[in-house]
């Protein structure tokens, strides 16, 4: 019974994604594509924060690394989207591992403050290093990915292609993270979240696992960033502020930390909210903050937690 309800939830989500571009207005498809990219980044953050328990306040900076990396590779070296995206995401992972080497020596709130500073530092690099990042103007006219379709030859991505491509990646991530949670690696991450010191004394190589997890999370952030850059065809530093990082945190807290479907539901809700809160401008951060507080106080486990309690589901996996 329970697993049936879970299957129905996933079927509904998949049906929604499959049918949405057919019946939805074009601007909605555009918005949903961006939401899909946010889901990729939020799921990556969830691996770090939800499963391993390390709250990063600087994740947008890694998104920025992927976005600027891919943009610079394609503009300066004339690379296609596919290689530049892959290289940028991998480079983000490597840089994540290197930064993680130092920053993961911190735990709890100290780690969060460290990532906050990291986010600020990288943001000022994006903003001020005009020669490379284009400064506050950002970088524009990024190439569109090209796709080989039998019968039509090589054609550039249209909005519909983007939508399905991004959601295909989301789907693969859902499958992949589901496997990860059930694997030895995933269990060791959860063990670190539960009790890091105990995990170490029963033989988990905590340092190594933490760096691997941080790198994985950075990779997914970089991937999402590269998609973001090429989808909008231009990027600027203001997409990668600490405020944006807080939005990702809000997403996974609203959705439910350490659950598979949480970042997806959280992204939908935050995007819908941001549509209606557009008029508030910067004040919407106040609303996000209040939402986090309300969820932390009254809705333990976010939407997923509430659904688990009401319908007696196990949505962790």
């Amino acid at each position, binding site marked *: 019974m329970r697993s049936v309800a879970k299957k129905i939830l996933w079927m509904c989500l998949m049906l929604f994604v499959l049918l949405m571009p057919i019946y939805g207005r074009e601007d909605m498809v555009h918005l949903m594509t961006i939401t899909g990219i946010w889901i990729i980044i939020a799921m990556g953050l969830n691996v770090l924060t939800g499963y391993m328990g390390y709250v990063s306040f600087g994740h947008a900076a890694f998104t920025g690394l992927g976005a600027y990396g891919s943009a610079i590779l394609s503009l300066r070296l004339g690379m296609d989207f596919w290689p530049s995206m892959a290289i940028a995401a991998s480079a983000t992972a490597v840089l994540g591992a290197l930064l993680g080497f130092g920053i993961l020596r911190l735990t709890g709130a100290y780690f969060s403050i460290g990532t906050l500073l990291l986010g600020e530092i990288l943001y000022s690099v994006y903003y001020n290093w005009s020669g490379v990042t284009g400064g506050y103007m950002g970088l524009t006219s990024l190439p569109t990915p090209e796709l080989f379709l039998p019968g039509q030859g090589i054609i550039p991505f249209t909005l519909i292609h983007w939508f399905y491509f991004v959601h295909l990646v989301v789907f693969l991530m859902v499958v*992949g993270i589901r*496997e*990860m949670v*059930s*694997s*030895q*690696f*995933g*269990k*060791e991450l*959860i*063990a670190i979240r*539960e*009790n890091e*010191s*105990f*995990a*170490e*004394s*029963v*033989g*988990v*190589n*905590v340092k*190594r*696992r933490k760096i*691997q997890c941080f790198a994985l999370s950075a990779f997914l952030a970089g991937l999402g960033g590269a998609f973001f850059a090429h989808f909008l065809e231009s990027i600027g530093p203001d997409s990668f502020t600490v405020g944006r990082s807080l939005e990702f945190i809000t997403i996974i807290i609203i959705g439910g930390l350490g659950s598979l479907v949480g970042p997806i539901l959280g992204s939908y809700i935050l995007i819908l909210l941001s549509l209606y809160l557009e008029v508030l401008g910067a004040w919407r951060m106040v609303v996000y903050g209040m939402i986090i507080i309300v969820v932390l106080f009254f809705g333990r486990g976010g939407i997923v937690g509430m659904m688990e309690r009401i319908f007696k589901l196990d949505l962790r996996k």
Partner: protein
Amino acid sequence: MKLLEVKALCKNFGGLKAIKDLTFHLNGGEILGLIGPNGAGKSTVLNLITNTLKPDSGFILFDGQDIRNVPRHRIVELGIARTFQALTVFNNLSVVDNLLIGHASRKKAFSLRKMIPSFSRVGERKGMVPEGLIELIKLVGIDKEQAHVKLTTLPVIDQRRVAIATSLASQPRALLLDEPLAGVNHYESGKLLDLFRRVRDMGTTILLIDHNLEAVFSVTDRVLVLDFGELIAEGTPEEILGNKLVSDVYLGE
């Protein structure tokens, strides 16, 4: 054969001399008891052996190898497992998952496999549990039907058993037990003592810390008595029972 040797070990916490010039050894295949009043430094000894604390001076040799600077997770791989005085388990993981965390550090595990994260599913259903873990669950006295339930749903005594099973899952050569009988009733502690004997008979050497002297004397081959960080007596349970100094320390004059 001396499996574990501690030589002239000293540890100070600020001005407090927690461990003073402690020398003892653990013979392979025995159960060694470590007793002493509260604050005698018993848990500190375990923390020093497992590199949770760094000694100020002295040596700790395991199977002839100096392990003072070996990282904690490597010590488990070398074959020293421990439990904690306060019940420590992974509450939100299932029984099998708890054991799997320890199981990954068993000696036979291929080292390259541990470097590269394993993403294949493990321990989710009956067929996915590595060989031996179900036997281990049964050995510590937990119904194998409960192998996949979360620990929060188990009674505390079963959580204690899982904590012991988790440390055994790494297939240790030496098992260090820190007050495993604290808060356990007479009947259950009898069953745990039986378990310790069986674990010893299966080839694991045990260092047992506990306040329940009757239980310690009934199961151990030798007993060490620690007071204010000093070894004040060492011998068979009968010798310790007859030792005037020990009864003074425990009962007062």
